[in-house]
């Protein structure tokens, strides 16, 4: 090697140099083997991890179907909104970030922790909705902290826009996040936590039709969670639009009539059972429910003694008062008792050893007078002659004490008392004297406004009763329709026997009710040019003796009922008005008259017989601050 002769001792160890080469080889072989382990043996595992890193599934929410009235005027629309989600797939200690997230999104920390707890068993890939309808400020916060808080993600979606001021709120219902309890039920099997679901009204009944199918996008993200591309997508299928049987004009008239009052108005086409208007008061603002509800608002609703959340049209179960006399008349006439009945009214009479009062001294009363005058003495007598089971048979035949089967959730069935009913529910025998109260629509008798509208509308239609509904059957597929019908069973479509003569007696008498003058109970509601018939009801909420004890007050004022029809036979519209503590049925008759007037005016306009009605109302607006139509007189 070396040319110069060098002392051996001055040389480096050749062995050690040689060994260094082996050392190099060893180190590189170890690294190579390790690479084999990672890249060949572990390739599949790491490829999956790399995919998980970069591909993220983002839901694309389907917009809910819009809701229109029968003539295609919009009732419920959607508006674009941004929701903030929390992703849990990151390799991160989320708890440490929560205070910062809470501050930035203006959510209490405990609320976020609660939300996380609710989702702890949900799959990790599923994003948690943190806050809906976030403000531009909060959106800016999320954008500005993409690096520190990559777990925050925003999602554009469509939110519900309901009419203002609780317009038709009970009918339409509202949407909210599906609750844990719901998720445990079978019918929510297809739902996931965080899904928006109809919580009441039409939104609940027709949720499966309105909600559509959510899609998703597989997006490629970088390490900051920023979207850099898209891999694939599954398109969202928007929910189906729904056309209701509601007539916006009639609904608005009904809303206006009930302004500032407690109670309900329901208007229906008795031929078909199509609901034209449904109002319940007091009302609530469903827009408050579609975003996170403020606790103050929730408290104000829960503490209101008049139950703003209750749809009184189908849930209020109250004594119908004298409106029940139409059903009594049906029973009396069909049993051939009432035709020949003549009763001397001296302001009441003795029945079963007790004096029962009438409002007035009507003198000699027959069936033709008894209805418009609403003579209690006549119906005490008729009730005594028929007996409770006959009355109950006719009551049940027109749907009293049963659900009507309307396509809305939580319908109440009311009570049609009978001997059997009392035995079953109170385990007591029926006392014959109790029939006297039932005869004038008091006692244990309880109806909903819808039941009453359907029963009296059916009688006025010659005994043909229709199943009430708010969505046209032809909007639905056959399977959807049968599913709705089986979910909401009721007495449905039916025909009861009613002779022509009896039909005429009853309907003519109802028309007499609104005739001017005499004893006629709803003369103040008379409308020129409209064949407006009906029956008042003034239902005591307390017995006379109890009233004497408490000394009166608003909550002791009787409930004012009216069921109106137009025209008198085969009516196109039946309107039931319940004005709680409205004092006299006559007052409700004037409200019914407003609704019927709106209906007739609109129908005439549509037939081209009127120049112009009020300009077509804009979508989702309500008559503002109308009210103040409370009649002064009786």
């Amino acid at each position, binding site marked *: 090697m070396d040319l110069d002769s060098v002392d051996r001792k*001055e040389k480096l160890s050749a062995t050690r140099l040689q060994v260094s080469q082996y050392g190099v080889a060893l180190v590189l072989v170890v*690294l190579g083997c390790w*690479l084999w382990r990672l890249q060949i043996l572990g390739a599949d595992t790491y490829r999956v991890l790399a995919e998980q890193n970069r591909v993220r599934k983002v839901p694309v929410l389907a917009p809910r179907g819009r809701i229109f009235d029968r003539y295609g005027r919009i009732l419920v629309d959607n508006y674009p909104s941004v929701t903030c989600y929390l992703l849990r797939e990151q390799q991160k200690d989320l708890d440490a970030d929560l205070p910062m997230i809470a501050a930035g999104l203006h959510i209490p920390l405990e609320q976020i922790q609660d939300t996380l707890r609710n989702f702890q068993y949900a799959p990790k890939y599923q994003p948690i909705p943190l806050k809906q309808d976030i403000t531009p400020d909060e959106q800016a916060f999320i954008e500005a902290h993409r690096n520190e808080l990559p777990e925050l993600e925003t999602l554009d979606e469509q939110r519900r826009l309901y009419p203002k001021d609780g317009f038709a709120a009970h009918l339409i219902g509202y949407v909210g996040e599906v609750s844990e309890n719901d998720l445990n039920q079978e019918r929510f099997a297809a739902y996931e936590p965080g899904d928006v679901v109809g919580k009441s009204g039409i939104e609940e009944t027709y949720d499966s039709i309105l909600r559509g199918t959510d899609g998703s996008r597989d997006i490629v993200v970088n390490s900051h969670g920023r979207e850099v591309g898209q891999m694939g997508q599954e398109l969202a299928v928007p929910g189906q639009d729904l056309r209701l049987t509601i007539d916006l004009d009639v609904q608005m008239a009904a809303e206006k009539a009930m302004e500032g009052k407690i109670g309900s108005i329901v208007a229906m086409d008795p031929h078909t059972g199509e609901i034209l208007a449904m109002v319940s008061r007091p009302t609530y603002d469903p827009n408050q429910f579609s975003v996170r509800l403020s606790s103050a608002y929730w408290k104000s609703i829960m503490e209101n003694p008049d139950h703003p959340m209750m749809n009184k049209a189908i849930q209020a179960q109250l004594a119908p008062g004298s409106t029940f006399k139409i059903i009594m008349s049906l029973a009396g006439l069909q049993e051939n008792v009432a035709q020949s009945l003549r009763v001397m009214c001296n302001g009441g009479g003795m029945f079963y050893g007790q004096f029962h009062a009438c409002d007035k001294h009507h003198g000699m009363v027959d069936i033709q007078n008894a209805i418009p005058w609403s003579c209690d003495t006549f119906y005490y007598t008729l009730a005594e002659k028929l007996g409770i089971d006959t009355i109950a048979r006719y009551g049940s035949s027109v749907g009293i004490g049963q659900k009507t089967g309307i396509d809305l959730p939580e319908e109440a069935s009311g009570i049609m008392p009978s001997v059997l009913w009392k035995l079953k529910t109170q385990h007591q025998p029926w006392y014959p004297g109790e029939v006297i109260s039932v005869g004038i629509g008091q006692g244990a008798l309880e109806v909903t406004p819808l039941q009453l509208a359907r029963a009296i509308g059916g009688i006025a239609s010659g005994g043909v009763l229709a199943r009430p509904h708010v969505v046209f059957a032809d909007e639905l597929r056959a399977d959807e329709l049968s599913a709705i019908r089986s979910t909401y069973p009721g007495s449905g479509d039916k025909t009861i026997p009613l002779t022509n003569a009896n039909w005429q007696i009853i309907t003519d008498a109802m028309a007499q009710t609104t005739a001017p003058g005499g004893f006629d109970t709803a003369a103040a509601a008379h409308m020129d040019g409209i064949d407006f018939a009906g029956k008042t009801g003034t239902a005591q909420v307390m017995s006379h003796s109890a009233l004497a004890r408490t000394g009166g007050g608003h909550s002791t004022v009787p409930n004012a009922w009216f069921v109106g029809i137009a025209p008198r036979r085969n009516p196109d519209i039946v309107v039931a008005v319940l004005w709680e503590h409205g004092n006299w049925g006559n007052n409700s008759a004037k409200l019914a008259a407003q609704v019927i007037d709106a209906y007739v005016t609109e129908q005439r306009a549509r037939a081209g017989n009127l120049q112009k009605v009020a300009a077509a109302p804009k979508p989702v607006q309500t008559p503002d601050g109308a009210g103040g139509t409370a009649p002064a007189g009786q």
Partner: protein
Amino acid sequence: MIRSRFRDFDWMLLSFVLVLSVVSVLEIRSATAMTKFHGFQQKQMVFLAVGIVGMFVISLIDYHRLLEIAYWAYGVSLVSLVAVWLVGTKVLGARRWINLGGGAHFQPSEWVRLVLILVAARFFWQIVESGRDLSWKDIGKAFLLIGVPLAMVLKQPDLGTSLTYLPVLVAGLFLGGIRFKQAGIILLAIALLGGIGLSSGRLLKPYQRARLTSFMNPDSDRQASGYQIRQSLIAVGSGGLWGKGSNKGSQTQGDFLPIPYTDFIFAAFCEEHGFIGAVGVLLLYFLILVRLIQNAQTAADPPGSLIIMGVAGVLLFQIAVNIGMCVGLMPVTGIPLPLMSYGGSSIIYMFLALGIVMNIRMRRFVN
């Protein structure tokens, strides 16, 4: 004239190095394509050009001249490290750079390593020349010689660079004739001291231990060393046999892999070029190292061999630690991969070191 001077130039070694440099430039281009560091491959090519010129220049200087001034240079090195301490620019919490003005920065610790290789060569040459065995006193001196600048760099703090001084010492001791018994005692002592230090918790406080592995990355959780290694493993593993292709590595392009153009460039390369590419790079390193050792074996005199083995030792150490880190065998220490990672100081050091090696080779028949 020039031609005759370069007749013994190691063109083969240079060609291996240049192939690797091309691979480096291409991978830097791919790894920075989606980032604000886009175009760094051009700066890397400038560094390479400067390095190659520097290599040729230094290869013309007789390495014996360099050995003569080695102790002086050592003194200057210590002064420059003190200067860094006093006037250095603080970047990410560490003082490593001296600002030269005009945007140029000088990182003395890289150059100090070159000086240490020369000093160690001269130190051990003197021992070998005297013909005596390595005494405990010699070993102590050698530890001091390397240990002082090592401690100063460690203090900057720059754990990565300071650790690269160790192979200089190890190579010197190994070739200087350390006996196995001595080596065993030293290793035992280090193990014992380290064990006591770690178990008593005095040597390293928990935060220091954490910093030891992740001191490079002061900013956030996401940058913690555990996350980095995990992402690096995913990058390497998901590359598979053939890799995902240039500009197609999701870990590299999606910014999941930290600093994919410097410390983690090997992981980026593995992701995009797979096991085949990775083994190719290992093979190139193997060829370079073996070629270096062959040059050491054929060097004209012991100091020549010692210098080359110092260079080779540092190179092997850096490869092992950096690649080891990328595949999860080593902690994150911030040691760049020589000839692959982006960075001027590292590249220029490497080529200057190669220049000295070339000179040694060119002088193997000359005296």
